[in-house]
């Protein structure tokens, strides 16, 4: 995938499949039950896919994050989790602490 137009095809396909869900939701209006088993399955698949991606991005990163040692990445995650819970589940505190930890350890290690 080196040709310049391929990313544009990818974006257009991503946009189309994404709007498909939204458009279908508008079309369906209140006529379908969003708490039914099909949507519960869809939701589980989305959770699993995202969890799999997060786990892979941290453990087996592509690109620049691979330059940070695994121990540094895991320390960043641990600090983010501690800060998140210590601050009463404040997202900004958790993310900020994790990122600062990663950047500092990258400089030090």
């Amino acid at each position, binding site marked *: 995938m080196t040709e310049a137009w391929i990313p544009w095809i990818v974006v257009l*396909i*991503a946009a189309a499949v994404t709007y498909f869900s939204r458009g279908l939701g508008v079309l369906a209006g209140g006529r379908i039950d969003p708490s039914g088993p099909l949507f519960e399955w869809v939701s*589980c698949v989305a*959770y*699993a896919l995202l*969890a799999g*991606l997060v786990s892979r991005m941290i453990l*087996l990163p592509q690109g620049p994050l691979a330059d940070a040692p695994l121990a540094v990445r895991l320390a960043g995650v641990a600090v983010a989790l501690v800060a998140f819970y210590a601050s009463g589940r404040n997202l900004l505190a958790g993310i900020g602490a994790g990122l600062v930890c*990663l950047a500092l350890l990258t400089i030090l290690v």
Partner: protein
Amino acid sequence: MSAERPGGRLRTGLAGVREAFGAPGLILAASFLGFGSLVRESDLSVWVGLATTVLVWALPGQVVMVETYAVGASLLVVAAAVALTNARLLPMTVTLLPWLRRPGTPAWKLYLAGHFVAVTAWANSMRIVPTLPEHQRLVWFFSFAATLWLMSIAGTAVGFFLAGAVPQPVTLALVFLNPVYFLLLLIGDLTQRPRTVALVAGAVLGPVFHLIDPDWGLLLTGLVAGTVGFAAGRGRPGTAATARVEPADD
């Protein structure tokens, strides 16, 4: 919300804009910094990154798109992975749209509103829209969600250029932003057994399947771990009835 007078569309619109600049909007904009950086570090152009935020505007699907593309997955796999990640937008749209629809609302406005259904916009709109008078709801939603959308576009551009301008450790931190953000959102929302099982299974299978087959790994992780989680919740009375629609993960 301030009290609205007849003809106060501007006032309603400004209230939506103001709401967008609250904490959820700022977190959203920050998370798009991470997306912009990821785009640059994946050797994609700023225009591709901006077009993704403009046209897709659902962060988990966008990150899935860039990551599956970056590992060289086929178009079919990218499409399926993005579609499954973003299929959660369907039930979200179904629950929000009845609040925006009035007799006589042109269909095109509703289909346009559909594009602005994404988790942050949806979660806050579900909280606020029902408290507004009917005639203000669509105007408020458009101004609120479109402001979030513009903030996301700006965040993408800033993140892209930051990644090239700051020292390498800061670039690393920016690229680290999205996995950490998603991780905290996912574990902060672990209340139901099926989703908890899906999440743990996905976290374990994700790297394993990636090592076996980088092309299909992520998609198979979602399908296998998601189905395992779903099956773990079947036959347990009350699961479906208490299932919440919102997946608070972007």
